[in-house]
């Protein structure tokens, strides 16, 4: 019998602390290592100060550990004011003895002259004094680089920073130090020494990509402990602070049920083999005017009829347009809202970044608890960022919806009128459980609309492409297109009935030859 190596068990392993940053703990495989110093490096505006303060706020708010904030850059008065938007009342915490500032920011009113050699012993004494005064277990220092600009002798500052970092370690506190860097991709910190002071290094980035800012966090090194690798998107939300979106940490563990729900259209239900699955995500793809918003409206009406709460996220049309269109199809959104079964969130996609939308949608869903969520359309959100942020949004959105046991219906607009696919579909088609295509079909100088269920995971479905009309009662699905081929490719070709018979007879002859029996 082997004896497990005791050293590898809990006691000697690195202990980790919560940071108060939602989902950060997932990418840090636990939390921030206790009694270690962690360097947060980032360009201007990447969220370093917020991270440093959130780290303290997390333990102050739950009353577990007081903290000390050492500022070299902004004055303590500015920080008190700036952090109000996150709901952190720093002045109150200071009065309660849970937080102490060490304000080492430059004072513009006092001129300082250097004459001869000196050290930063007074600063260290102040930090020690503050830690002792409140009994701090956490210390944040923001930011190291600002120290270099206050004194002319860089090597002295370097030496003194080492001394302070060393002293912090021996005070038994967990420290977060911030440092600025010039570029988002380049040397870790401006003065080239900051990273050697710390046990752990994390990088915050704020990269301009396709005219949009995208924030990411990366754990570069965690001495003696495991962490997730690569960049993870995050966003800064009022009332919360930093929120990390751990996409690759989202596990494929969604439950899948065989409970069917109505699409709101009896014929469409029939085509899907008895309705949509609950906990599934359905993509409706079509060119402009093919009836995507109508499909959404019916889906919501179907939910309301079943007594399910529905959420509509509309990014293409105004509230008034949506309500007018719905009443044109015999659906009363206003009544549904009054009954509390419908909520409509209607906004320009541009008011938020994609990460912010994801967080915002998640908080609405958590609060409203809908059974059905419709998003019209994904294509409108696509213009908010590059391919990668968009793909991450779609992954985040679909996995979140499935975990909540919600049925999601997303629409996507194809660029061409006839046939074709959109970039949206390329990203999302493997993530969705069902795909419904709406297509224009040109026949004898007339535009008709066609609908087909392309994919229906875990169920048989109608393979026909059916014609449908839109009238005051909504979508009327009719017969399948016969004698036409190439609809989905966007080049419908009419075949005369005799041609079709001839093609079929060729297949039959083939089968007869192989089996020796006439094909039934």
């Amino acid at each position, binding site marked *: 019998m082997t004896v497990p190596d005791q050293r590898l068990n809990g006691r000697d392993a690195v202990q980790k602390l919560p940071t108060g940053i939602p989902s950060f703990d997932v990418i840090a495989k636990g939390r921030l290592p206790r009694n270690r110093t962690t360097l947060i490096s980032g360009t201007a505006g990447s969220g370093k100060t917020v991270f440093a303060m959130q780290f303290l706020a997390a333990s102050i708010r739950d009353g577990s550990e007081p903290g000390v904030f050492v500022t070299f850059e902004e004055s303590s008065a500015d920080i008190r004011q700036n952090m109000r938007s996150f709901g952190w009342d720093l002045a109150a915490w200071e009065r309660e003895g849970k937080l102490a500032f060490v304000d080492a920011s430059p004072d513009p009113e006092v001129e300082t002259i250097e*004459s001869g050699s*000196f050290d930063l*012993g*007074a600063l260290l004494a*102040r930090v020690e004094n503050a830690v002792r005064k409140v009994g701090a277990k956490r210390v944040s220092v923001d930011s190291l680089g600002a120290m270099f600009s206050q004194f002319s002798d860089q090597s002295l500052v370097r030496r003194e920073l080492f001394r302070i970092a060393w002293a912090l370690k021996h005070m038994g506190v967990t420290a977060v130090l911030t440092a600025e860097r010039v570029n988002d991709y380049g040397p870790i910190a401006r003065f080239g020494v900051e990273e050697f002071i710390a046990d752990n290094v994390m990088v915050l980035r704020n990269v301009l990509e396709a005219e949009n800012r995208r924030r990411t966090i990366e754990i570069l090194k965690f001495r003696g402990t495991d962490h997730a690798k690569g960049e993870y998107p995050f966003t800064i939300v009022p009332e919360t602070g930093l929120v990390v979106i751990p996409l690759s940490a989202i596990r494929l563990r969604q439950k899948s049920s065989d409970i069917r729900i109505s699409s709101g259209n009896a014929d469409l239900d029939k085509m899907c083999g008895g309705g949509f699955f609950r906990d599934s995500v359905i993509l409706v793809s079509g060119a402009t005017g093919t009836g995507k918003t109508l499909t959404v409206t019916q889906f919501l009406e179907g939910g309301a009829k079943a007594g399910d709460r529905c959420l509509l996220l509309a990014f293409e049309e105004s509230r008034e347009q949506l309500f007018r269109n719905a009443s044109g199809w015999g659906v009363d959104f206003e009544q549904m809202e009054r009954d509390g079964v419908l909520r409509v969130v209607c906004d320009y996609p541009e008011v938020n970044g994609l990460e912010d939308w994801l967080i915002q949608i998640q908080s609405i869903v958590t609060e409203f608890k809908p059974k059905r969520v419709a998003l019209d359309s994904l294509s409108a959100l696509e213009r908010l960022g590059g391919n990668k942020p968009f793909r991450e949004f779609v992954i985040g959105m679909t996995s979140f919806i499935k975990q909540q046991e919600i049925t999601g219906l997303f629409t996507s607009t194809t660029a061409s009128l006839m046939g074709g696919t959109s970039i949206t579909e390329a990203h999302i088609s493997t993530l969705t459980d069902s795909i419904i295509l709406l297509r224009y079909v040109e026949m004898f100088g007339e535009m008709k609309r066609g609908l087909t269920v392309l994919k229906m995971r875990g169920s048989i479905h109608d393979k026909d492409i059916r014609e449908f009309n839109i009238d005051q009662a909504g979508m009327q699905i009719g017969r399948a297109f016969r004698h036409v081929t190439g609809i989905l490719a966007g080049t419908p070709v009419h075949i005369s009935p005799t041609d079709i018979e001839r093609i079929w007879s060729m297949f039959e002859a083939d089968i007869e030859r192989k089996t020796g029996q006439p094909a039934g």
Partner: protein
Amino acid sequence: MCDEDLSAEYELQIIDVLENPQMAEDDRILATPTLIKQLPLPLRRIIGDLSDKEKVLLGLEVRAAPASTSQQKKDS
């Protein structure tokens, strides 16, 4: 230096930051040693061991205004 260049017209207070860190906090001192000139205004700080005497006297504006009266010194 005080006696030589200030004609003994000064008031000097010496504070040890290790014994009295709260005073260093209130005055926002970083470096040791730091010499603070409180009066006459403007407020001025001189950090270092004062080995560059010319710079110190210039900083204290002793050269320009030899009638300085009050100083405060902090040291560890």
